[in-house]
């Protein structure tokens, strides 16, 4: 039902970290992602001992918690069309994340995000990541904007 929003995400293949959106409204979003055992970062992080990098956990939290909700709000409130306009990109402007547990290849994580505000084009959310036993993996504040970047002219 909510997964049509995934068609608007600008990420492809190895950098798309959203499988499913289980809850989505103006104030919150919840989504899931299962870490692929053959993801590109496990080979080197760490050699012989694969652990999901904190920066990837941060990216999963940002894609589900900020980008999915941000695109939903922008589509609702403006004329932006993500399918036709390929110069609109979601950009992260700040994060402040704390980590509590490691995540191994093949594990499923759930991200829950609650909107703090959406004003002047900036979305700020409080985001939590839980593992399959509902234990806290990470939490933090995320902010981002949607920018029109014309990469072809630069």
């Amino acid at each position, binding site marked *: 039902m909510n997964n049509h929003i995934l068609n608007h995400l600008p990420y492809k293949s190895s950098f798309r970290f959203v499988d499913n959106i289980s809850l989505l409204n103006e104030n919150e979003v919840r989504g899931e992602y299962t870490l692929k055992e053959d993801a590109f970062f496990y080979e080197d992080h760490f050699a012989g001992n694969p652990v999901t990098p904190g920066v990837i956990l941060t990216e999963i939290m940002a894609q589900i918690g900020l980008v999915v909700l941000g695109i939903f709000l922008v589509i609702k409130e403006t004329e932006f069309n993500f399918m036709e306009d390929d110069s609109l990109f979601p950009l992260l*402007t700040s994060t402040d994340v704390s980590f509590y547990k490691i995540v191994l290849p093949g594990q499923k994580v759930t991200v829950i995000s609650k909107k703090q*505000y959406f*004003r*002047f084009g*900036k979305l*700020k959310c409080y985001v939590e990541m839980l593992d399959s036993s509902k234990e806290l993996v990470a939490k933090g504040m995320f902010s*981002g904007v949607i920018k029109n970047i014309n990469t072809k002219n630069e």
Partner: protein
Amino acid sequence: MTRKEILDELKKVIAPYTTNKEMLDSINDQTDLIKDLKINSANLVDIIIDAEAKYQIEIDYDSADKMINVGTCIDVISEKISQKNEEYR
């Protein structure tokens, strides 16, 4: 509220978002929030929201657009405060 009073309060609003604490003591109307105080442009939104709470005003999109340096911030805040006072009369 005089411009001086607004400026003193504005310093407190800006403080959490700038890493250039030394410059904050000597800001004037020409001080640019992004260039001089090195404030992340997305944090201007936080400054506007904090200013709204502090002065109990509402800042619309067009006014927010003008808030580039300390002087224009004070202009907008003082304009909104007087608008609010008009309404209460």
